[in-house]
């Protein structure tokens, strides 16, 4: 026993003195480890969701977040608990990053009573009042004015909270996004707009849909500062997020972060993927995968050993398997649920 404790102490000592000799403070170390674990959890969750979809246990539209994990994990780490988050229909990663349980999310995907929306929302409509996660919106662009309105409420109350409003490169072309930008800057609302540019709006490449492909410039005519960020690197995301959130929290108004990222899977499960080559996807996976590259970096820095990564993966897979069991064994909503929650 004493020996085991001594070994553990030695290991944590090793973590504090990584291979490059740089001293890392413990809080930063914990954050790096959490980044890795949170990204891995989303990855494994989404893989399992894809599997369950193939088995017919998840229906309708199912948009997987695989490849984009660094964006939501890095941003979430820069938030305060009273800040808000709102996003589009590709929302599994966001609700998990907010700290909700995989079981409740997976049960929503399978349409069960134990899902976070009681099985009435499904894949595209995740919400958590508890974690200030405001969904989960299926109409491209519509969540952008809503997120701006959450920021409006923050300013109205002077509560110092900031709303993170995520949307994709496709939504960036919606008129109401510009309407929201205008009011956000006009009234200096505490909102950070995160454009998750995964290169394809459904099947249309950004260059085929967008006159100016540098989407971080989208706020220029409203005087909103914008910045392009390597969305495949969780540490870069975190740094940019901190800066943008501070800007908004200080009352300087909105900030735009364009996250250059990539989705490996189709737009939804029924995507024929005729618009890009397998080689393109493979190349990104091999060179830029946010989890693999970050894991390798942590190993090189001595934060993790290869064995630690394997152990973490086993642990996460177990959590996801339990979530899948829970989601497939839970009952469907009771028939009387059809008529509840229409009005308060």
């Amino acid at each position: 026993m004493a020996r085991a404790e001594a070994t553990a102490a030695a290991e944590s000592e090793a973590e504090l003195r990584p291979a490059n000799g740089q001293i890392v403070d413990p809080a930063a170390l914990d954050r790096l480890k959490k980044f890795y674990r949170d990204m891995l959890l989303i990855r494994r969750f989404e893989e399992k969701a894809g599997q369950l979809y193939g088995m017919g246990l998840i229906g309708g539209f199912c948009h997987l977040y695989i490849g984009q994990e660094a964006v939501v994990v890095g941003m979430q780490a820069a938030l305060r608990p009273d800040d808000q988050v709102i996003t589009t229909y590709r929302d599994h990663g966001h609700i998990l990053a907010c700290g909700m349980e995989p079981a409740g999310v997976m049960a929503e995907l399978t349409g069960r009573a134990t899902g976070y929306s009681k099985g009435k929302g499904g894949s595209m409509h995740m919400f958590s009042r508890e974690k200030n996660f405001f969904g989960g919106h299926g109409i491209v662009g519509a969540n952008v004015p809503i997120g701006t309105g959450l920021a409006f409420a923050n300013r109205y109350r002077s509560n110092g909270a900031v709303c993170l409003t995520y949307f994709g490169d496709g939504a960036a072309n919606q008129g109401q996004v510009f309407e929201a930008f205008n009011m956000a800057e006009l009234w200096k609302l505490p909102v950070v707009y995160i454009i998750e540019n995964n290169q394809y709006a459904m099947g249309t490449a950004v260059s085929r849909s967008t006159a100016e492909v540098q989407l971080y410039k989208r706020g220029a005519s409203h005087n909103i500062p914008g910045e392009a960020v390597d969305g495949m690197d969780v540490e870069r995301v975190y740094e940019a997020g901190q800066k943008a959130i501070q800007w908004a929290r200080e009352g300087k108004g909105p900030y735009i972060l364009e996250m250059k990222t990539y989705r490996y899977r189709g737009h939804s499960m029924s995507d024929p993927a005729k618009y890009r080559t397998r080689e393109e996807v493979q190349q990104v996976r091999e060179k830029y995968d946010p989890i693999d590259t970050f894991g390798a970096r942590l190993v090189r820095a001595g934060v993790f050993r290869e064995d630690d990564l394997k152990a973490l993966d086993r642990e996460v897979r177990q959590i996801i398997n339990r979530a899948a069991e829970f989601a497939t064994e839970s009952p469907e909503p009771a028939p009387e649920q059809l008529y509840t929650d229409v009005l308060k």
Partner: protein
Amino acid sequence: MTQILMPALSPTMEEGKLARWHVKEGDVVKAGDILAEIETDKATMEFEAIDAGRIAKILVPEGAEGIKVNAPIAELAQDGEETGAPPAHAAASAQAPPTRSAAPIDPGSPPGQVLPRSGIGISSREIPAGAEFVTMTVRDALRDAMAEEMRRDESVFLMGEEVAQYQGAYKVSQGLLEEFGERRVIDTPITEQGFAGLGIGAAFGGLKPIVEFMTFNFAMQAMDQLVNSAAKTLYMSGGQMGCAIVFRGPNGPAARVAAQHSQDFSSWYAHVPGLKVISPYFAADAKGLLKAAIRDPNPVIFLENEIVYGRSFPVPKLDDFLLPIGKARVVREGAHVTLVAHSISVGLIMEAADVLAKEGIEAELIDLRSLRPLDTATVVESVKKTNRIVTVEQGWRVCSIGSEIAAVVVEEAFDYLDAPPLRIAGKDVPMPYAANLERMALPSVDDIVAAAKAVCYR
């Protein structure tokens, strides 16, 4: 001598107040000089001379109210004309077209008088005995409702186009900026989809927004937010989110503004689960229901009517007058035929009932007040008594409020019907501009009388 006439300064203006003369008799004026300030139902506006000349005579004193459009207000002597010469036939200064004769302004009562409860849109069950009434316009009743709720609850705020500095495009928000300041009375850019969505987000964040659409014609731009975001999020989130918000503004045909600015959207909103829809006629209902709408935890579509804003009705003088959403009211009892309407059409069925009474037909009049929930029970109960029904509305007939009521009456009171239900509605065309065509496109008292007689086989 040329007569200067009272100008029509808004599409719905029928009369106005001569607030102030800027000229006096004997003054020489040239085109573009300000002659007077005219106060309309919407705003106080300066009125300019079109022709040069000398003000020969002022016919209407400063401060005079209720001056009809096209009434002579002054005489102008031109090019050496002498004062006292007979007036020319041409109306030089005010080229207002003759306005469409709308339903007459319902007579009000002096302030403070205790009124009888029948025929004035007040239900005895909803007002405590002995309550005093004051006469006020629907416009002022709406303003008072907002002001009272804003005083009561700090999380209530008003936003929309021209609601603050301009005092409201239709003057409904008059004085609110002065009382509550620019934090709570907010002029928005012209960006309906954007500010509708922003309001919904603010409501998710726990505020209670009142979002004014200048008219509901423009709310079409925001339809996605109203239906997909406001109405559905409570359900999609399994009851977690909710959205206490009021979208209000004038709905339905105005006057002479053509197809894109003249449309009744009642049945569009009434179709959507997750919304509540209110469309009052009387000032008391406007006040009591708007206050209830602001306190309601759900998204409420509050459909007003531009032409009705200036009509005056008694309103109970109570500190906190609330009415239940989802209850129709029998405005007048009758045995022979049920006439059902909402909003401005209530005025039409009241007029039609007077005509019918002279011919021995006693009509029972129902003001729906709310369109979702729709109080079909009150309608069905009435039809079981009268055995006949005519519905009246401004909107198009296909998939209309009348269609829904007719269907429910047939389902629930089929055996009581002595005639098929009839629907009087707007004609199935975009609203024309020409005065005669516009008149034809809208339901008239004559249409209603004819339909009521038809279902009575008279």
